[in-house]
């Protein structure tokens, strides 16, 4: 699965997610990716999220909406993502990852899997990582 979130100079947010689904899935199986509020969500008032991971688990807890709910309560994108991913693990044993941005441009790339390739471009810096805890930077 691949995805992106962005906020432009007008302060508008958007998300996009695309996938080939799950290896050896049943014909006709649809996961979280195309479902609004599961594969992603974007609202200028709160933030934008794109997800990846175990689709059935993500759908059961509507992961992007849960993250945005926590952000509405005042949590940062990073705090909200970690809380939602922890809830998904605790409630449905689900693993996954997210990229998140809020209307001010505060962003997060968080996951509870071993790996997630991610990159963020912001203020002429490119941040990127692959394993848990990585945050390399280079100039854009």
């Amino acid at each position, binding site marked *: *699965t*691949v*995805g*992106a*979130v*962005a*906020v*432009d*100079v007008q302060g*508008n*947010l*958007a*998300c*996009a*997610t*695309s*996938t*080939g*689904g*799950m*290896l*050896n*899935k*049943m*014909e*006709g199986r649809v*996961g*979280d*990716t*195309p479902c*609004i509020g599961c*594969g992603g969500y*974007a609202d*200028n*008032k709160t933030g934008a999220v*794109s997800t*990846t*991971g175990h689709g059935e688990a993500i759908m059961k807890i509507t992961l992007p909406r849960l993250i945005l709910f926590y952000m509405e309560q005042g949590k940062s994108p990073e705090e909200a993502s970690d809380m939602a991913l922890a809830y998904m693990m605790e409630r449905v044993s689900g*693993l996954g990852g*997210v*990229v*998140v*941005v809020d209307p*001010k*441009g*505060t962003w*997060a790339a968080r996951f509870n*899997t*071993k*790996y*997630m*390739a991610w*990159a*963020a*471009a*912001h*203020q002429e810096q*490119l941040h990127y990582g*692959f394993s848990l805890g990585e945050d390399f930077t280079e100039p*854009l």
Partner: protein
Amino acid sequence: MLPVVVVHGGAGYVAKQQFEASTAGVREAARKGYAILKSGGSALDAVVETVAILENNPTYNAGRGSVLNAKGEVEMDALVMEGRTLACGAVSAVRRLANPIHLARLVMEKTSHVYLTAEGASKFARAMGIPEVPEESLITDYARKCWKDNQRPDANPVQYQIGKMG
């Protein structure tokens, strides 16, 4: 603080030989998305084109490089949403398209609906003039190998379970 673009290339199992390509692909996509935003492009333009770049990269499970279903075929899903009006578009179980994300955007912009699936989505793609591509062009040797490996009764259970992630 603005603009910002953040991208991911999927979470879960990644084969060792794909570590570098996986990181390089998201860095390239983020750079291109940022260039769109810096030149005055919208967040919607940036996320759609960023995802299309990743769909075209065979390293990732989307577009070219998609995993295979039980029948050994490619069925793809995509979603786009913009935060000003909450407009959104989605497609699922689409076949023989290079960039499902472009079709999702057309659903958002050219129909009064949110979500089209399977043959209906394919008919809409044809009506919009999106060319079909041969299914073989979407299937990589690695995807075919993973599919075959998971057919075996002694398939690696760790890899099999992690393969349950999209």
